[in-house]
């Protein structure tokens, strides 16, 4: 059988790596292009760029570690592990942390990345756990700006072509310190609807396409390879600013019958939740209430209310849920009127971007345009404060699903993905 030398996986990929184990593989084969399609329209993989579009941010965080790497990464249990750094220790005066870096790290232009003295020193009096967590975050990735402005990374793939929001080609980095990836390249088509992706998959134009959580069962029964993650998208209602009074927001939250939506429309995929982060990540999501209480909702809004309501109409998985939410809200005296542009409230997918609650909350803070998290707070306190301050109403945690061609092996560890030309198509 085959394996690779590297066990720890990208922060972005760590969560995907929790996906259901796929079929057994043999010794992997080099070569070939993996053709991937997705809904997200990612403008850039620049780690410092935080997209306001939550779906794009989720995809960016997933793909970025293939190009740009961090000194530290989180393992499958969310624990920090050396990556570009080989270890960490404090200096003699106990005033700074020293991170020796690996030798022979090559940037995508072939030059060597080697900080002065072979290590990076960070003067920071915070606990090392916090420093490591921050260093594992996407925003701490090593990015070198070339003379022509190109951003160079150290990851297993380099960006050969990037048509912002439309398509991209990632090519194997032949001198990657962890060993050249098996694939020659990955082509990514962005902004593709689920229907278009399914169509391209069926005619063999794509090797990996997304599939809605509620649709995971049918292709599996037909024998198509399905890889699904633990819940990584939070379906939530997001309000536009603070102009909607708190009682109305609360009444809307209490009016929604999550249980019936989960049973019928989501086919029991994912989890009902009132928390932003899923249970597998925090374990405390049950502390956020998610029960329907229509009498209480009616008490909160004694007079009829009308709000404009937006959602991604192209997203066939979202539309019926949005319609059911509107019906539920009307029972509490709140009319949700469909809006195409700016809306009082929107049904959105918020991504879980990291295998660490703090890192995931930091990204959600940016997406929800909320105040920065208090560093002294626990993840639970920070999440509670974020929910209360942003007025967001989390509804469900949904898995991400992928349909895979039978030749795709080792998904979703992209460095280790290989194409089995002998597999039945």
């Amino acid at each position, binding site marked *: 059988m*085959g394996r690779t030398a590297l066990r720890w996986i990208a922060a972005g990929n760590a969560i995907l790596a929790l996906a259901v184990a796929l079929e057994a593989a043999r010794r992997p084969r*080099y070569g070939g292009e993996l053709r991937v399609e997705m809904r997200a329209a990612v403008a850039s993989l620049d780690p410092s760029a935080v997209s306001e579009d939550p779906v794009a941010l989720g995809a960016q965080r997933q793909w970025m570690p293939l190009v740009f790497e961090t000194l530290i990464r989180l393992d499958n249990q969310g624990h920090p592990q050396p990556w570009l750094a080989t270890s960490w220790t404090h200096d003699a005066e106990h005033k700074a942390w020293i991170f020796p870096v690996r030798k022979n790290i090559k940037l995508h232009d072939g030059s060597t990345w080697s900080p002065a003295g072979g290590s990076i020193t960070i003067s920071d009096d915070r606990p090392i756990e916090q420093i490591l967590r921050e260093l594992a975050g996407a925003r701490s990735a090593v990015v070198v700006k070339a003379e022509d402005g190109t951003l160079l990374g150290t990851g297993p793939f380099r960006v050969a072509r990037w048509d912002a929001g439309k398509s991209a080609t990632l090519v194997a980095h032949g001198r990657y310190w962890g060993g050249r990836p098996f694939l020659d390249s990955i082509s990514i088509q962005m902004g593709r609807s689920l229907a278009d992706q399914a169509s391209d998959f069926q005619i063999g134009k794509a090797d990996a396409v997304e599939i809605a959580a509620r649709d995971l069962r049918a292709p599996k029964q037909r024998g198509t390879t399905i890889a699904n993650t633990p819940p990584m998208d939070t379906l939530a209602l997001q309000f536009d600013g603070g102009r909607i009074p708190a009682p109305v927001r609360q009444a809307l939250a209490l009016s929604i019958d999550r249980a019936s939506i989960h049973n019928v429309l989501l086919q029991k995929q994912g989890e009902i939740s009132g928390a932003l982060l899923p249970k597998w990540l925090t374990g*405390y999501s049950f502390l956020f209430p998610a029960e329907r209480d229509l009498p209480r909702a009616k008490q909160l809004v004694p007079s009829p209310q009308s709000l404009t309501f937006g959602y991604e109409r192209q997203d066939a998985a979202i539309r019926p849920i949005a319609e059911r939410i509107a019906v539920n809200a009307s029972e509490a005296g709140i009319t949700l009127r469909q809006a195409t542009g700016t809306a009082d409230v929107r049904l959105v997918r918020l991504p879980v971007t990291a295998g660490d609650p703090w890192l995931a909350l930091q990204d959600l803070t940016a997406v929800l345009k909320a105040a920065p998290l208090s560093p002294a707070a626990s993840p639970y306190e920070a999440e509670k404060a974020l929910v209360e301050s942003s007025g967001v109403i989390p509804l469900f945690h949904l898995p991400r699903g992928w349909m895979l061609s039978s030749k795709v092996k080792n998904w979703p560890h992209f460095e280790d993905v290989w194409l089995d030309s002998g597999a039945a198509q």
Partner: protein
Amino acid sequence: MIVVIARADTLDEAVAALAKKASARLESSETARVTSRNISSLPAADAAKAQTALARALQRRVRNPKQVEVALTISENLRGYLLVTEIRRESETVVEMAEFRIEVPVLPPAAFTMESKLLWEQETPILDIAVLPDSMLVLDTAGLTRYERRAGKWDRMSAVEIPVAIRDPRGRLETNGDSATIHEPGVTCTVPIKMTAPAQCEEGGRFKAERNTQDLNDWRGEFFASAELGTDTLLAGMDGRVHIHDTAHAPQAVFDGGSDVAVIAACGGRHVALTGIGDAASPDSIALYDLVNHALVRISEPVEFSGPVTALWPAGEGAVAVAWNLSTGKYGAYSLTLDCGR
């Protein structure tokens, strides 16, 4: 309300830590009525034990007690188990948490007729190993290292750097008298066994450059591994299957096996050891086969490894195998021998 998550190594420690925190949150006049629920994979017996222990730890004698509900929830996240108490008062709910992990014991290996013996273990991926009368050579992704046995343990004597930087790295070590030949992707090197001179390397060789495959420019084309058994040749091919060819190189059969094969010449015959088809994150095995009418017939119980087998090469009357231990993260080189008496 401040929630600081305590971390503990055992359930008892976690309950004690949580009880201490929850107790500090109770008013002097309050007594706790502990309820619990388990929404984790923790066995029910352990969950019940946790509730009992928490209730006992929160017991106190007060005059005119005011009872408050302390709801214990046993949950879990990707790091381990999480104990959460909610002290529920009319005006507020106070939350406290404690985490703990349970280590899963490694199962003992199963019995087998082909015997394996651990020769060497290290963190750097081992590609091949050779045990000589007075020394041991370990070829890994950094290069070749020579050890000598002294006072019952192997001492590192010398090393040459011949790094391999591909995924699924492979390499073969052959010794001949005082010299060792090293085959790695895209390069072949020779070096004196005692490393008295630098390695002489030249491009090319049996492994393709930047690949995990072999190509000897013969009828076999590109393949993972090959072994000759009688007049037949076994090829672990690029399609992930083992192909059996006859003496005229005509394909005879295809076998769903692993990607490494090695002939073991022992017990008066030649047999072939073959790896399993597990993936890189699962335990693996090696079993012994004979060829009967161009078909592989298993003749031994598989030798089980607690991780993927990454290399299998013939060695003397047996073979050497390298397996990655999923529990320790180390690579172990094993000698495989056949017990002729069983």
